[in-house]
């Protein structure tokens, strides 16, 4: 290992050791386990800065944090899944003894022998780890795929197709009381009649033109081509709006982390 690397690591250890001491002192009298609390806040700050060090370049601290995250995540999901669903939903339907051991509520009437099916399918799914018998995990995958396909078929058809088409049929004349009334009240007020009508026209025509753009079975020429072009413009506005929101979302996450570093770690009273 290079000398500069050793010096850097030494400095990092010293900085975070000092941080632990100062945080423990600040928690003394406030928290019961002040030494532990000081360590935990310092650890959180160390891990945050380790990940952020990737902005300069890939380095051992980032790799350490990344690998730790992978290990902890996998175990987290396993633990949550086990206690919430296996213990919470499966065991009370299969075994009174196990229910008593895990102290979950067992109702004799809830016993259902068919719940051995997901147990068997689950074990078959684990066979995917075997090179010779991994093919049998396809049975469990088929169950998962069948469930997802069956659930999504009706729901997407209703909510994302029928209801969306229905919602596109908006009134193109809003609050109509004659041409005279329309022109006499014409303004660019956000809540005015003209803007509300314009919104509905944009929605109606925009959806039509957007769908026309996605119809690739016909060449986009003539009127069809012009409608498709309008559809592209509508989609460009959509993507621009999505970009704006994406930027907002990402910045918020950064604000959250920097707030943690300044307020919880450095103790700056914001």
């Amino acid at each position: 290992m290079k000398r500069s690397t050793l010096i850097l690591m030494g400095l990092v250890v010293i900085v975070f050791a000092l941080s632990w001491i100062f945080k423990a002192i600040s928690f003394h009298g406030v928290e019961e386990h002040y030494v532990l609390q000081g360590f935990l806040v310092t650890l959180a700050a160390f891990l945050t800065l380790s990940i952020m060090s990737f902005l300069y370049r890939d380095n051992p601290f980032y790799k350490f944090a990344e690998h730790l995250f992978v290990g902890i995540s996998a175990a987290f999901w396993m633990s949550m899944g086990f206690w919430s669903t296996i213990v919470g939903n499966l065991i009370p339907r299969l075994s009174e003894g196990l229910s008593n051991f895990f102290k979950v509520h067992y109702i004799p009437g809830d016993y259902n022998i068919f719940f051995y099916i997901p147990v068997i399918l689950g074990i078959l799914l684990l066979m995917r780890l075997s090179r010779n018998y991994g093919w049998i995990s396809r049975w469990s995958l088929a169950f998962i795929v069948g469930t997802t396909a069956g659930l999504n078929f009706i729901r997407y058809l209703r909510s994302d197709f029928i209801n969306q088409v229905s919602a596109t049929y908006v009134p193109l004349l809003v609050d109509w009381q004659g041409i005279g009334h329309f022109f006499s009240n014409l303004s660019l007020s956000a809540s005015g009649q003209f803007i509300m009508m314009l919104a509905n026209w944009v929605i109606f025509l925009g959806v039509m033109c957007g769908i026309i753009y996605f119809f690739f079975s016909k060449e986009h020429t003539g009127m069809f081509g012009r409608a498709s072009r309008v559809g592209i413009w509508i989609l460009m506005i959509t993507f621009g709006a999505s970009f704006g929101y994406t930027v907002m979302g990402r910045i918020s996450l950064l604000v959250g982390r920097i707030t943690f570093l300044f307020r919880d770690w450095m103790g700056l009273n914001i």
Partner: protein
Amino acid sequence: MNAFTPPLALALVDIGRVISLVLIAGGLLWLLIRAIKLKEVERRVIFLFIFISVAAPILFPTVFKEKATPIVKAVFDKIESLPPGSKVLLSYDFDPAMAPEVQPMADAFSRHCLVKGHKIVYMCLFATGQGQFTRTMENVIRPEFPEKIDGVDYVNIGYKAGNEGVLNVIISDFKKMFPTDVNGVPYDSVEVFKGIRSCKDLDLIISIGGGRPGIKEWVLFVGDPGDVPIATGVAAVVAPQLYPYYPKQLLGLLGGIKGAAEYESELVIHYPRFKDSPTPALLMMGPQTLAHIVIMAFIIIGNVLFIQGRRKEGKQ
């Protein structure tokens, strides 16, 4: 910063604000001049500017007034209009990565529902939601509503694996999927669940999140089939995709930290008891504003560089 902050501290904050704005503006101007001379900006310089544009308003905070837009007000008005004792479900469908945006929403919804006297059912479709609910418990329910009783005024039924599979069951039978709460108390013993057999018996469902599973699954599997009023608070990334559901399938939407800030503002206006409660979303609007300006400036600088490059090619 509040009315008791000493004048010297306030003055230092003002000076800090001005200095940081001048530094950022000066730096961006310098980069623009370099762009006109066809000099690229190194990416680490961009990173530095983003860091300063976020850090400076955190150190020298500015709180802006927010006014709720109609799409946010719709959610607020719905919770307001429900009579006390109504059954509201809050689903924590997010992980720590989304928490800075949506945790303020979750806390604000909890405050609003509890102050109105609604009965809240907390659940999650994300495993991490349970950990995030613990934060609401520590930061909102215990300190601000110590009189509220677990099982009587609210209940936490936790997480179940299965994504939309969970929703497909609770649309017709809650107990089948959640036979107990997280502490093992049987469903029938929880007072909050009296009169709730399925999601159709709920007065309002609010999904807070932005990933999958999330609000889309709630609309598809519960809202539309069960005709249950649904509202949501989502991460900004996902918000534009949900507008087609508004207002028929989704009665309202809080999009990103701006939506959260608008809701917090509305809550403080209607319930002055919350004026000293933390409003993290409102505090985040300062860094948000400056960061947006910096990003827009970099886009302009990039385009100036592009146009200058084209001109040079044209001359050659």
